[in-house]
């Protein structure tokens, strides 16, 4: 019977060593690298706001429908869809609080979303996804936005270009809350458009 116990123990210990302990020793402490382009260390450390925004991304559990990884060329159509110019590599993720490479693409991949659209689009899209993407089934995040009375001049943060039915009443405007702003800051920080020794861009 000790044989049974030992066998059970070693089976799990074997995979744990092989898949976690050994890789952790080899790639559990990757460092950013200085690139010749501008001498900066890549991947760039996200700004403080972007790092806070990651928490909002976690809270809304965006990973459920959005991956953050570009598959290699020829494996799927990630390159052709414009989701990235090179395959994602572990070094891209060293600053993640939680690693959210994801396993589902009910929505498009976001590994390079910061390289594709600007803040205005993000706010519009988060407020009502149907206003930018017809037929989208993404939930709206209106609760991250505030309806406020317009001051003398409209706030420079106020959303413009509403979908029919979304317009605020006369004299009011819709502005992003702090959480919406940091979430967008995080989304803008998502880009893997630099070249790493182990991940060359395809042009």
């Amino acid at each position, binding site marked *: 019977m000790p044989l049974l116990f030992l066998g059970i123990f070693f089976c799990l210990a074997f995979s744990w060593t092989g898949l976690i302990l050994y890789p952790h020793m080899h790639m559990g402490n990757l460092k950013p690298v200085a690139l010749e382009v501008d001498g900066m260390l890549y991947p760039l450390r996200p700004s403080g706001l972007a790092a806070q925004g990651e928490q909002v991304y976690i809270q809304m559990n965006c990973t459920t429908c959005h991956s953050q990884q570009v598959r290699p060329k020829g*494996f799927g159509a990630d390159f052709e869809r414009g989701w990235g110019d090179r395959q994602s590599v572990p070094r891209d993720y060293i600053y993640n609080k939680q690693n959210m490479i994801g396993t589902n693409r009910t929505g498009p991949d976001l590994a390079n979303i910061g390289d*594709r659209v600007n803040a205005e689009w993000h706010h*519009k899209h988060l407020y009502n996804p149907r206003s930018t*993407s*017809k037929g989208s089934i993404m939930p709206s995040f209106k609760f991250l936005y505030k309806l406020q009375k317009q001051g003398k001049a409209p706030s420079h943060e106020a959303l413009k*270009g509403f979908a029919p039915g979304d317009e605020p009443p006369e004299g009011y405007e819709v502005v992003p809350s702090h959480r919406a702003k940091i979430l967008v800051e995080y989304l803008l920080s998502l880009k893997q458009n630099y070249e790493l020794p182990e991940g060359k861009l395809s042009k």
Partner: protein
Amino acid sequence: MTPPQKPKKQPFETAQFDDEALHGRHDPALPVYQEKGEPFEGNSEMPFALFVAVVFLAFGMGVYLTRYSFDFDFFIYDHNKHLILDAGSIKEEVWDPLVQGEKIFKKNCTQCHQTTGLGVPGSYPPLAGSSWLLGIDAIPVRVLLKGLEGPIEVEKAQFNGAMPTFGTKFSDKQIAAVLSYVRQAWGNAAPAVQEGTVTQIRQALGDRSRVFSATELMSVK
């Protein structure tokens, strides 16, 4: 459905147990006594064919692992790496403006103008058939270089949004490519935009930081 009825207690007749509780609760006609004995295993041998199949499977997987393990290197992430190594060198892609333009468009423009070039009614103007785009190339080049904001009428529909600046993000060659692509996609048939035109306009605009408005563009010759 069965009608509600109280269970009938059957007298427990064989008084061979002392445990009072057992008498009360365990009616011999009830489930536990209707069970068959505890399960046990038979002794059929493992079929030989299955054994052979398992050996083959294990062998096949060994071969697979040898081929796709790349010496357990932690810095190889593309399983097709061996194809590239076999080919010796990667072929340079020929720079075709329309192909590259489509790539740039799909990555940077489809979120608003959509893959169909039709935009989103009420939010984002269409590119297919837009006279702003298909007229003289100086207008779209300016829009791409410096952005466009404020009310604009496109093919009899009103829009009021903001188009971001791409002048810093893309080279003249890339701007010429993406414009050439959109001017010829979806049935559009305007001439391609030359790299030289973009360079010229970029120089003319200098370090202007203001975005364009529709009225200003209308005066562009």
